């Protein structure tokens, strides 16, 4: 079943993200994707995430497609102008890629090439407009296409925990009007906050998949709270991770091998997904290097 069919069937949808490497060793990303075979409905491939230079999302998606997997191409507006973005959408299509997640993208100063020229000729909303135009057979300049990528399946993102959230809500509506058919979100750690957000956007008629970012440590949680916009890890979860970390330390002191942190992280993610399940039509997992734990997370979530 394609990702689109899964979403449109109304079933509970699971997507997971993989990240291309900096360099040409593709084994790791292929292994991570292979682990997801049969377990998820789509695999997001990030586009120079955090503004760091890497193998492209397009090339990685094409490899996944060759492996018989279902990639979701992420596209940001930081590095290409409207010609290159539209061209890449067509290129993705001819390589068999059907799902595209449109984002604005982090600014270059947050990445590893801080002296680069940021583009932002388009943004998430206008990239969706451009892609929807192509779907309908026309480019942004009004030019007619020789063959339209008619069944591109377009998505966008939202940050439910943004403060204030109203501007996000306005933009979400504009994204849906521009052509988004599915929405993935920034990391969610609190079921009630997410439920409140869902009530607020109950008039949005496309499915919203909350993001699940695996906590790796109490320190990571605190870092995200301090530095990542719209992410709020509740104190209870930070405490659980801190305690797991202490257990790992104690075991190491006794010369034993232990991984309480990973176990706790998997347990937290599983609990979150079970709590979110009645309030949405799927989840989007962002393991951030812990792709090997995703099967365990799905098991913990009862999926």
């Amino acid at each position, binding site marked *: 079943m394609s990702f689109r069919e899964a979403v449109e069937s109304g079933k509970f949808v699971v997507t997971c993200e993989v990240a291309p490497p900096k360099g040409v060793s593709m084994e790791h990303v292929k292994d991570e994707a292979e682990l997801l075979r049969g377990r998820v409905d789509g695999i997001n491939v990030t586009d120079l995430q955090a503004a760091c230079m890497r193998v492209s999302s397009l090339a990685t998606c094409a490899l996944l497609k060759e492996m018989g997997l279902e990639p979701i191409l992420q596209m940001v507006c930081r590095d290409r102008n409207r010609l290159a973005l539209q061209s890449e959408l067509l290129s993705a299509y001819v390589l068999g890629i059907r799902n595209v997640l449109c984002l604005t993208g982090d*600014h270059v100063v*947050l990445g590893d090439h801080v002296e680069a020229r940021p583009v932002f000729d388009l943004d998430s909303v206008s990239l969706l*407009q451009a892609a929807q135009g192509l779907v309908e057979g026309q480019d942004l300049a009004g030019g007619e296409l020789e063959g339209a990528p008619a069944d591109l399946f377009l998505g966008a993102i939202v940050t439910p925990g*943004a403060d204030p959230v*109203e501007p996000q809500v306005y933009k979400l509506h504009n994204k849906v009007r521009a052509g988004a058919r599915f929405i993935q979100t920034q990391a969610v750690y609190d079921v009630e906050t997410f439920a409140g957000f869902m009530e607020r956007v109950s008039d949005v008629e496309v499915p919203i998949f909350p993001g699940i970012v695996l906590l790796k440590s109490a320190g990571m949680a605190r870092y995200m709270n301090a530095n990542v*916009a719209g992410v709020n890890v509740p104190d209870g979860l930070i405490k659980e991770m801190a305690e797991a970390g202490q257990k790992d330390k104690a075991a190491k002191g006794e010369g034993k091998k232990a991984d309480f942190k990973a176990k706790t992280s998997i347990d937290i993610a599983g609990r979150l997904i079970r709590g979110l399940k009645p309030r949405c039509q799927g989840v989007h997992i962002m393991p951030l290097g812990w792709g090997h734990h995703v099967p365990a997370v799905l098991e913990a979530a009862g999926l």
Partner: protein
Amino acid sequence: MIASELKPIDEILGFLGSEERVFVVACDGCSAGCEVSDEEHTAAMVAELEKGGKVVTGMARVDMTCNQGLVALMLMQQMEAVKAAEGIVVAACGVGIQTVAAAVEKPVHPATNSVYAGGFSGLWRSEPRCAECGNCMLDYTGGICPYTACSKSLLYGSCGGPSDGMCEVDPTVECGWMRIYERLAKLGRAERLKDMPPLRNFRNMLPGGERRRTSLWALELVAPEVMEEAEEPR
């Protein structure tokens, strides 16, 4: 100096929508020099506004609308007329329009497109800045320029980056789109964010042949010959 052009009257009337009573601010600086906001052209614009069914409650001519103190002074002198207006039409460059917006809690509508500042040296530009984009969006964004206030020059709302209202690029800088949102919310115009204006047209930023024939370009081209002539012995 920032060169500007008058927007088509229909676009200005479109900005005003159901607002009937307007106050007009016209700059006597750069945009007057561009024959956009000089007395003759301002009078013509006011006549067009009135023809379009608007009541002009008053007008202020400001020597340099980019000067915040001067703008505040001129508006204070006509406080009643400003209060009586629902919105303010500003014929000035983008800097001037934003200066007026910062001074009054009323919707500010640009009458001009700022198109070009190249070739002018010795220019001291302070906040708020104008990108001379050639298609002034200050009506849509509540009098705060999205191209200069947002680190990514986004036109369709904030990215996911701002944290506590500060920009992801520089946490000492306020997120331009949060400022725009707060300003629109204060004016009761946040619903404007449902509009999706047309994409930015970068071609508007290219100085056309017409503009290259202005006296400043001519000076640059002609100056060497003039100098040579001046150096010839009489």
